Each structure stands twice: as structure tokens, then as C-alpha cells.
């Protein structure tokens, strides 16, 4: 049974996402797995992190005992002060996003559809949710990478034909990186490009709610 097979852990997903960040690019990381990505930026490449808490060129999380309440990321976690930080207010922070100045955003998701629709702000059962910066990022970032587990807690696919949860943005997702696969969203649909070690294309497809085209160059997860 596929469920018994080992899946990649959150750090490995983050490591794989980090490979997608362009050298010299401006990148916004969402909450959850995306936050881990900053720890895996490729040696020798430079990525500038943007946080809608109001800081550009932000650094790693603060060490315990060195927290500053006036230096936080979008999740409210405390950051280390680093040279080159620039502060701004929220109107400007989102002008950067909608104005097309952020190259890549990495977001978590509840669902991604075959058309690249993203649903990540509310689970209908809860009846209320947080949008935060997600809709602006979905609408404004040049590329939207989703980093998430391939299935939900009931092992149901999170990659679906049509989203059934409230939408964050239509057709905005460019790449999905999960604990099983790397899938590109194209005008023709979803294309499976990489598969986790020990998993087959068929096993990944079986846990995916939308039809995957298989890339001619499909390969094992590249780290």
C-alpha cells in the first residue's frame, strides 16, 4: 500500500523549493513549510526575502533571548537584525507585491486545481479563516510555488480537478512541490516532473485528484 511508504519530510520539501529561487530574486515566504525555505538557500546564491510585516532583505529567525518585538516576519516570529534590511509600511509592502516587484512567493495550500487555482485561506468546516497576504501574493507575485503535503490528514488528494474550498486566486500557481512530487502547472494542465525516491509515477497519480501529464524528462526528486 502506498500509504505505508515513507514520504519526504517538511525540510526536504523546503530544500527542494529553495532550488527554485532565482539568484538575486525577491522572494516572499508564507507561513508553514514555506518559512523553512530560507534555511536552504543554495550556497553562493543571493535571495532577497520580502515580508509583508514590513521588511525587505530580512534574515533568519532570532535566537532565543535575542528577540526584538519590533522585528518580526509575517507570521509574527522574531527575526535577527541583518545588514541591508529596509522597513516600510503595509501599503508599500503590498504595492511591492501587486506592482510585480516580487519574483516568487512560496505558499502553503489546502487545494490546488488542475488549472492552477489555489485554495488556502479557509476550511469550510471552520466557517471563518484568515486571508492575510495570500490573495495579494496570489494576484501579484510573478511566480507562485505551492509547498505542501501531497494529501490531507485523511490521505485525500490536495491536488484536485476543481477546488472545493474557497479560492485564493485563479490560475496563479506555477509549481507545486510536495512530499511526493514536483508538478508544474501549464496551460495544458499539470505536468509531473519529479517523483520522490521509491515512488512510482502511478503511485503519485493514484494520490492525485487530477490527471497528471508525465514529462518526457520525469526524474527522481532533485536536491
Amino acid at each position, binding site marked *: 500500500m502506498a500509504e505505508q511508504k515513507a514520504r519526504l519530510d517538511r525540510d526536504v520539501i523546503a530544500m527542494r523549493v529553495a532550488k527554485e529561487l532565482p539568484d538575486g530574486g525577491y522572494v516572499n515566504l508564507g507561513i508553514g513549510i514555506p518559512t523553512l525555505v530560507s534555511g536552504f538557500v543554495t550556497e553562493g546564491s543571493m535571495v532577497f526575502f520580502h515580508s509583508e510585516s514590513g521588511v525587505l532583505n530580512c534574515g533568519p529567525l532570532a535566537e532565543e533571548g535575542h528577540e526584538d518585538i519590533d522585528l518580526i516576519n509575517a507570521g509574527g516570529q*522574531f527575526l535577527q537584525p541583518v545588514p541591508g534590511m529596509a522597513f516600510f509600511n503595509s501599503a508599500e509592502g503590498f504595492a511591492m507585491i501587486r506592482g510585480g516587484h516580487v519574483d516568487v512567493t512560496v505558499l502553503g495550500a489546502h487545494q490546488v486545481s488542475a488549472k492552477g487555482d489555489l485554495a488556502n485561506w479557509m476550511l469550510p468546516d471552520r466557517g471563518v479563516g484568515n486571508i492575510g497576504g495570500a490573495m495579494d501574493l496570489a494576484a501579484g507575485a510573478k511566480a507562485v510555488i505551492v509547498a505542501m503535503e501531497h494529501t490531507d490528514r485523511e490521505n485525500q488528494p490536495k491536488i484536485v480537478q476543481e477546488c472545493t474550498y474557497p479560492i485564493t486566486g485563479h490560475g496563479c500557481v506555477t509549481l507545486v512541490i510536495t512530499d511526493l512530487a514536483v508538478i508544474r502547472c501549464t496551460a495544458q494542465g499539470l505536468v509531473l516532473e519529479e517523483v520522490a525516491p521509491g515512488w512510482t509515477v502511478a503511485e503519485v497519480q493514484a494520490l492525485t485528484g487530477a490527471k497528471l501529464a508525465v514529462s518526457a524528462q520525469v526524474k527522481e526528486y532533485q536536491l
Partner: protein
Amino acid sequence: MPPAQRLSDDQIARRVARELSPGQVVALGFGLPGLVPGVLPERTGVFCLSESGALGYVNAGQTVKLRPGGTPLGLAEAVAMLRGGRVDCAVVQPAQVNAAGDFSHWTTAATTGVFAPGAGLDLAAGPKRVIAMLRHTAEDGSPNIVPELTFPVDGINALHLIITDIAVLSVIPRGLELMEVAPGWRADDVSALTGVPLRRNPDMGEMTFDMEPSRFPSKVFSEARDALHDLSDGATVMIDGFAGPGGMPHCLLVALRDHGARDLTMISNTAGIARITNFGTPPGKLAIDHSILIDSKQIKKAIASYPVSPSASRPSAFELAYRRGEVELELVPQGTLAERLRAGGAGVAAFYTPTGAGTLIAQGKETRVFNGKEYVLEKGLRADFCLIRGHKADTMGNVIYKGTSRNFNSVMAPAARVTVVEVDEVVEPGMLDSEQIVTPGVYISRIVVRPPGFSPYE
């Protein structure tokens, strides 16, 4: 009999200055209005806004010199102040005015004949009062107050008062009324040099040029509760606090709880999650956040982008109240919230944003396609009160922030009728570097100093 001598430019400026009161912001156009800051006494409490981008300045030749507490501004920000209703009075030098209070700006035709409105149109549209400052006649002796404007129009029915080198005229519904004449001039002399008929005010007097030195009323309140004394039930209140304790006006939150105003609409990024995330909260303590106003049942409605706990299993006070049907929620994407605040503060009624197109957020809203992409019409937000947290302020209300804690604070500050800032320290004008000021004092009505040792936890 030849009329008496005309007033010097300096005297006209002094007469204009008499129209200004302490605490007012006055926007000055190009030309003669540039003389006004130079004739204002020190500590007069009038804030001069130059459309070239300076708040609180005096002229120094062709350039301006900032007064202590002055702030350099971007042009967009200066114009936003005008449109946002922050400017009490504008002084312009028109080329011509008519009896309806229409005017042509002096730059339009006097020099090139090319229509060059500059900020003249914004000067005419935004401020509560517009004063024309000009010479009564042109160089060829023809009247500058004319039956019909012959130069391009900059402002329609815009003028309230006309101050020239021989008279002060008030624009009234039926035309122009002669209020004052320069020393040695008679009403008939003025009428002879005016292209439209003048009514004579029964109390017409002689122009005077002295300005009472007056002290600017202090914005600093020693008690947070006094700064909220006139906040009433049903008010709309903006309160910052992005996520954790940073940037949150804790003293003002507690003062608002103690104040007890009810049925409030609260505009904020979160509706109180610091109590849930507890970043930086010492063991056994609770962070002070918006939840304290939920607990005291003062909030009727929240407008927020991140209203509930990140974890469904640890609901916030707001979420519990929402489930009980005690509070309403208007959920707004964070960037849309920021831009709605910015627009509200800048006098922009609404704007189109791509954010949220095709989602629940767009339901019931007007949408429009630009260049093949769908945009949602979102409206500017304004409030009765705004409670923000700064690091330092000077007594004029100029504010600087620390780190990420300016995020929503400096966006909210312009968007309310009364903005109260809670700071660590208040200093004299000039003690803050004018180049570093983030929120110019025009947006700040009241300042409260956080008591030393105040704990943001309880």
C-alpha cells in the same frame, strides 16, 4: 486724486498670515504665497505645506529651509494631504479671478501660454478654504479681477477670499464683497480698478498686518484616557497590532477598555491573536491585544485580514464571539486593507485591485477588466479614531517608528478624524531628524506617552 501707495508683497503676505490660526495646515502655491512662511512669527503653530514637498518650512531665497519639526515629503504625499482633507487652507496666486471665485493659475499663461496646472488643481479641490493672493491689476494696469477668465481655468467656485495689494474681497453667492481696503484707499478707488461690480460690506475697514504671536495648543496628553474622552458609542476605530506585541498601542487599548465605549467598529489587521501566538509573552501572562475589547463586549464589527487564530483548535476571543453571533466580520485581504486605508487617508474614494478577483471577496463588488485582467473595486476606509503605536514623537506630532512596527500604523494614521499615537518618548521639535520622520504631524491629533515600565502583558 491719485490713490495712495499700494501694499508691498511683504504686506500682502502679512495680511494673508492673519487669516491663519494655530494648528492649521496651510498649503502654499508658487509665487507670492511663498512669502507667507517668512512672515509667520516663530512658534505660531501654523504648518506650511509646500507643494514642492516640505511640511513646516520657511523660504530661504529660491529654496526652502525646514523649520524645527519640518518634514520633507514626496509630491504624491503632499498632494494626498491636500485631497485627504488634511489641509485647512490653501493660498494661491492666480493670474485672474472672477466674481464666482473661479481662477486661472499664474503659471498657466503669464509665462508660456501653455496649460501647466501643476498642483493648482489639487490646491483648489482639497483644502477647506482657498485664498487668492495677487496684485489687483496687471502690469498694463488692467484689472486681474475680471468678468470672464481669459486664461485656462484652474479652479471653479474655489476661492473664498481674495487678498490684493489694495483690498480684501470675500467671495459670496452673489459676487464679490469688499471687506477691507489698504490704508489710504477708498472703496471707489478699488472699484475703479476692479473688472466686476463690488458690494461694499457694511463693516468695511482698513487692512492691518500684525499677527498675534500665539502658542500652538499642545497635542500631548498626560493620560491615555483623556486622549479618548470624546470617543463615542458606535464609533469606528482603527487599531494597529500586526500580530504580536510590536506596534500595538497597549496603553490606548487598555484606556479604550476602561473608557467603555460600545458598539464599536474596529479596523485592524488581526482581531487579537497575540494572546494565541504568545510570541514573547512571559509564562503565566497574557498579551494585551484586541481581545480585551472583545472580552468587554465593546466590539460590534471587525474589519480585518487575519481575524482568527492560525490554529482552529485554539480559537481566539474574537472567533468564539463570532461563533456566538456577537460580532460581525468584514474579511479583507491584507494588501487590500492597507490600500483601503491609504486611499481613505489620501481622499481617494475607491480603487481597482486584482486581489481577490473571482473569489468570495469579490462577491457583490463591481469588477472591471483592464488589459485582459479582472480587477475588483474596493473602497477607501476612514474612521472616527485611530490608535497607533510609534516610537518617538515631537510635540508637533511628527512620528518615527521602530523596525517592522510601522507596518499598519503609518498607513492608518492619515485615515481618521482623530489619530492618537502612543509613543515611548516625546521630544521638542528639531530633536527628530526631519529626513527620518515617517508620519508627519499633520496626521496626528494627540500624543500619549507610554509610562516607563508599562508591561504589554497582564
